[in-house]
């Protein structure tokens, strides 16, 4: 009983003295998390993570909405979390995306229309200088 009592004292003191709680509200944003995607060839794509689909990621990049296939990806850095992921994207990334519930085709078309695009930019097209915007 003495040990248990001591345990309570110590844990309470340690809890009070060594940690403080900072607001997770900073994490609460309506957008998806900013990410840096490193491609197999070494190029990087930066943008907001919009959706994690069966085939890859949908990003809001500076120059438009883009799609990256999983086969092209080597690493994803979640900038605000300093968390780097190197696989298992479909399990790990949805909670960091703007639309973890997934989008319907109609909703994707609406987003593309807002961005003035007919289709998502593809990384191989960008590499060739042939954006489909």
């Amino acid at each position, binding site marked *: 009983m003495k040990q248990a*009592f001591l345990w309570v004292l110590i*844990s309470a003191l340690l*809890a*009070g003295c060594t*940690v403080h*709680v900072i607001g997770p509200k900073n994490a609460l944003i309506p957008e998806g998390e900013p990410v840096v995607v490193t491609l197999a060839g070494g190029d990087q794509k930066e943008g907001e993570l919009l959706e994690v689909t069966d085939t890859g990621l949908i990003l809001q990049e500076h120059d438009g909405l883009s799609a990256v296939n999983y086969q092209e990806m080597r690493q994803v850095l979640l900038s605000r979390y300093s968390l780097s992921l190197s696989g298992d994207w479909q399990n790990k990334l949805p909670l960091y995306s703007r639309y973890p*519930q997934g989008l319907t085709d109609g909703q994707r078309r609406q987003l593309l229309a807002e961005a003035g695009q007919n289709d998502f930019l593809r990384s191989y097209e960008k590499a060739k200088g042939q954006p489909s915007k």
Partner: protein
Amino acid sequence: MKKGRILLCFTLFLPLITAGCGFYRISPKEIEPEQIGSGPSPQVNTPAKAHLKDGGVVLFPDGFKVEGERLLGKGEKYDLTRKSRTLAEEVSLNEVAALEHYEKDLQVVESTVTSVPVVAVGFIGAAGLLKALFGSCPTVYSLEGEPRLEAELFSHSISRRFEGDDLDRLSEIKLRDGGYRLRLANEAPETHYINRISLETVDHPAGTRAFPSPDGRIVVLAGDEPYTARSRRGADLTSRLAAADGLPYRSDLVLVNDLAGGITEDWIELTVPVPTEERGKPMVLALRLRNTLMATVLLYDVMLKAQGINALDWLGEETRNPLYAWRIYRWFERNYGLRVEYWDGDRFVPAANLSPTGPIAWHDVAVVLPTAAGSEARIRVSYLPDNWMVDWVGVGFGAPQPLAVRSIFAKRVDGLPAEEAERILAPLRMKDSDYLVTSPGESHTLFFPADPPTPGTERTCFIRSRGFYVEWLREDWFKDAMKVTEGTTFEPGDKAIMQTARLWLGKKEAMERMFTATKIPLAGGGQ
């Protein structure tokens, strides 16, 4: 008496806690047991997001409560494109596609160490990730031939507040190519936070065996003394417990039925002849055992599911209250653990308590008991009926010391270049605020470099670990939450034990059939 001491404790130290060390949420009213966990209605007090079916989102910085079929709170609603923002004080659950909340960061004061990553305890109805019925905690496999399940780590550390240490014996692992390989896996809808992992090699005298003790030490068992064993209901268990063959002793369901009506125990009683030459030496009792799924029913159906959507808040917020967490921890250990007692000539005297070890892997453990004075020793192992399965019992006299103990950290991760491997391995070396965070389906094969055993000795390997895990909410809990109108924050006590026993009687067979069939496949095809 206990309550009085606790109140005194906080009365004396509250000024110190609050004045000298920054902000913490302890307040005098929180330490009143009747005030703890008595929320008026289902609610989430941590920042949360409600993702809407139309692609919009509602942010609730201060959480929300559920009333009828609505989420109520101070919300900010954004449309699909996030260009339109309006205030929203209620959201129909029919509009909601997914819910998400954020656990709070912890930061060490006056330290440059980065904070623990924010935990997103997620519930996504459409993601298809929540098919598994039961959680587990990190599982560890040895990889000699067919992968073999060796251990489940810190299985009762179900939130950050319950973070704990574990020491598990590895019975199948072999030295190969200059070291040992272990696969560390997340096979359930959980997020694992692994703080530290090391492999411990113990070289001990030939002909002896080494086991972990309940307090995390290594105990060496010499010999294999004969004994007779009986259950509380009088069944002869001697031959059943003589071999570690996977055919364990389990309690008669008559006792579980009794437990559903009032607190009672089952026990195994050993009678051990003490040879004259062994008198005056300490006894060592070794056990191979694991939990049934009864404690899993307690966790999922009584602690979590019965709280509905409150479970999300409970895991993320309520269990941060150190007093509440302590009460649950102590209650769980005391009731769902296993007690070892020895006969002192007059009565059974407590010698050790074993924490629940989980339902997946067999767990080996040894306890050093006092010297046997007479010609016969009696040992009793007691527990809630059908909460444990006991596969093997060994008894020895004397407690030789290990000859060499080494603690080894993983140096490589199979299949990953050094730089990527380091991201996985670095958090595992120190007990600190840096965690390896793993998601369902994730696994890593760790390589621990080691030399061969000292000549003339035998080696036993152990994995020493520290961490906790967080359960993902399941879709059916969310649906059930809509029906909850009264606060049902979990309260430990005999009522919860009896309720668990009643549920266990009804679903035991179905749960055991489905248990092994619901693991999440590992990325990369590992099993």
